């Protein structure tokens, strides 16, 4: 907030300079920055669309409070229905017809894969993509693409290490979603556990997003006699798993992936009592955790939700995610000042130094360098005690090689 005021004050002074430089930068005028985005607003993946919506709401707030360095943000977010060919079409529309300065938070692994080479060929910043795959951080090969969240393989590795330390003799059961997201966690676990993975994992099961229930998988996993359960699933199936495990009386150490570690969208529907003891990792605040009831940052988030995204669901953690990622972009644009050329935007994005973002867990920051295109790499383990996710252990910073 404070910096925004400073920025507003500086507008008048820098206006002329901005106009001069911005004239050469695509998608930028003296009054406006055009940012492109694709999100699944329709179709089977539409539940993720709220990220795009919350970012849109964030830009509305930015514009209401004077913009960035005097420029308003023109946010063009298009629907791709989570279909890669459609993403290609929409991205080309954004780059070639709308002539956006860059794209930001385009959502999905297969969808971003479809435009990965295109964006780098066109040399348009493809910033902070909304996917946890590892391939978004290859500055040598793809200097225009950058991820944002801690990648799934890193989380998988954290789980693997946790098992090695705490259950060196444990029998492990793994369930994951049968797509790139699920498989990346398994890759990370395998990386951390080495040949212990094959020894300790006694049963693996997968599910499809179209599966009505995962009861059958849970029964099969329970039947394996495992005492550690690594559950890599989205909230709906995580909640189903918690319920079913309780129903059949299977009580292993339950390690749940960060995607589903949400009090309002997983634990509460499943039953808070049943979710007790679940171990997970996190990097941003769950607004529904009582720990953040009076947290000023979370309160600011709530006030923002009420004013700018009233149709949004405050129990949905993804809206906090959208808010935090939007602030990363704001930071980059502010740092870029009036040189909003694509090169400079990329340069600023790859030189974030310990930037604190609202809604990140205390002590965490975004950090990049020209050789490190993974902005967020810190996480902390949590254990759900029936009312709140209690953080324990140190901040884990799993540098991705």
């Amino acid at each position, binding site marked *: 907030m404070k910096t925004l005021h400073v920025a507003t004050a500086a507008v008048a002074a820098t206006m002329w300079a901005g106009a001069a430089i911005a004239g050469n930068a695509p998608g930028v005028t003296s009054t406006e920055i055009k940012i492109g985005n694709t999100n699944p607003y*329709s179709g089977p993946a539409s*539940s993720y669309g*709220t990220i795009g919506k919350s970012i849109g709401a964030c830009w509305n707030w930015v514009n209401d409070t004077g913009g960035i360095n005097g420029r308003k943000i023109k946010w063009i977010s298009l629907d791709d229905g989570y279909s890669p060919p459609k993403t290609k079409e929409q991205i080309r529309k954004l780059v070639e017809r709308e002539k956006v300065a860059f794209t930001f938070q385009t959502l999905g692994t297969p969808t971003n894969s479809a435009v990965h080479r295109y964006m780098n060929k066109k040399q348009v910043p493809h910033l902070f993509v909304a996917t946890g795959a590892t391939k978004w951080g290859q500055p040598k090969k793809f200097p225009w693409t950058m991820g944002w969240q801690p990648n799934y393989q890193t989380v998988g590795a954290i789980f693997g290490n946790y098992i090695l330390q705490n259950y060196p003799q444990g029998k492990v059961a793994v369930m994951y979603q049968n797509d790139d997201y699920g498989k990346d966690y398994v890759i990370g676990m395998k990386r951390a556990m080495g040949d212990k993975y094959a020894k300790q994992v006694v049963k693996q099961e997968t599910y499809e997003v179209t599966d009505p229930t995962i009861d059958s*998988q849970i029964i099969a996993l329970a039947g394996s006699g495992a005492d550690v359960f690594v559950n890599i699933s989205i909230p709906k199936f995580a909640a189903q798993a918690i319920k079913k495990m309780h129903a059949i009386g299977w009580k292993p150490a339950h390690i749940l992936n960060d995607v589903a570690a949400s009090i309002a969208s997983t634990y509460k529907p499943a039953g808070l009592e049943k979710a007790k003891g679940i171990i997970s990792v996190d990097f941003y605040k769950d607004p529904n955790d009582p720990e953040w009831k009076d947290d000023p940052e979370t309160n600011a988030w709530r006030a923002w939700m009420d004013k700018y995204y009233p149709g949004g669901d405050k129990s949905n953690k993804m809206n906090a995610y959208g808010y935090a990622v939007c602030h990363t972009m704001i930071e980059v644009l502010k740092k870029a000042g009036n040189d909003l050329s694509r090169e400079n935007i990329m340069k600023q994005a790859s030189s974030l130094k310990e930037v604190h973002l609202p809604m990140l867990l205390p002590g965490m920051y975004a950090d990049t360098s020209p050789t490190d295109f993974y902005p967020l790499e810190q996480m902390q383990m949590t254990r759900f005690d029936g009312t709140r996710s209690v953080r324990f252990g140190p901040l884990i910073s799993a540098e991705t090689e």
Partner: protein
Amino acid sequence: MDQFLQQTLSGLANGAIYASLALAVVMIYQAIDHFNFAQGEMAMFSTFIAWQLIAWGAPYWVAFVVCLAISFIGGMAIERIIFAPIHDAPALSHVVVFIALTLIFNAMAGFIWEFTIKEFPSPFPAELPFETKLIGPHEVGIVGITLIMLGMIYVFFRFTPIGLAMRAAAASPESARLVGISVKKMLGLGWGLAAAVGAVAGMMIAPVVFLEPNMMLGILLYGFAGAVVGGLTSPGGAVVGGFLMGVLEALAGTYVIGSELKLTFALVVIVAVLLFRPAGLFGRVVVQRV
């Protein structure tokens, strides 16, 4: 052995979910001689209405009944407003409208209620009267409700004049008019009843899979398959088909092919069944002598 029993029972419980939706599929098929692709999304929307009523403080059974009434009227309204004007359009044009309705209901639910999963209460007691880890009370309840609905639908189509007239109106509308049946009214009634049956299915399914706009996507697939494999004209067949899908999927996933390809496997089995019984397990081949 214990594992096998558990898998079978869980398959049956899932099968009851598919069966309840398959019943709605048969209901509409008997009434309009066509499969309604929007059935799943309509059921989802109905369930959201019930959820909203409960969230506003209505007791479960009040919400249940009001939701049935709204669904019934809504189903009739869809027939009257959307399908009556294009009654003479070819069947595939109707299919396009079904697809359109699917999109509309899905998007509207997302717009109104967002996509976070919602807990939907179960009307059944929290504990079974006997001690078991094999099956939960709600699962037993679904099986029971599905069988009750089956009985009601069977009696309706088999023994009531209106049920008979509805089948006649769907299969041979012109002849139906000639015996004094108002085909228009039958269509409306059929849509209303199918929507109500779908609403019951939705309210039974939601406590298991959690309520969200996309909850019916996969279930419709299985319900459709169950109804077709059982024979689209036979409510009993649809229920058997639904149970079959559930058990087949659970056992195939565990013992045959692994969970990655279990759906594919189940569908292949079904297609194989259809090759030997092209009208489904219990469907009667329509024979007509000329």
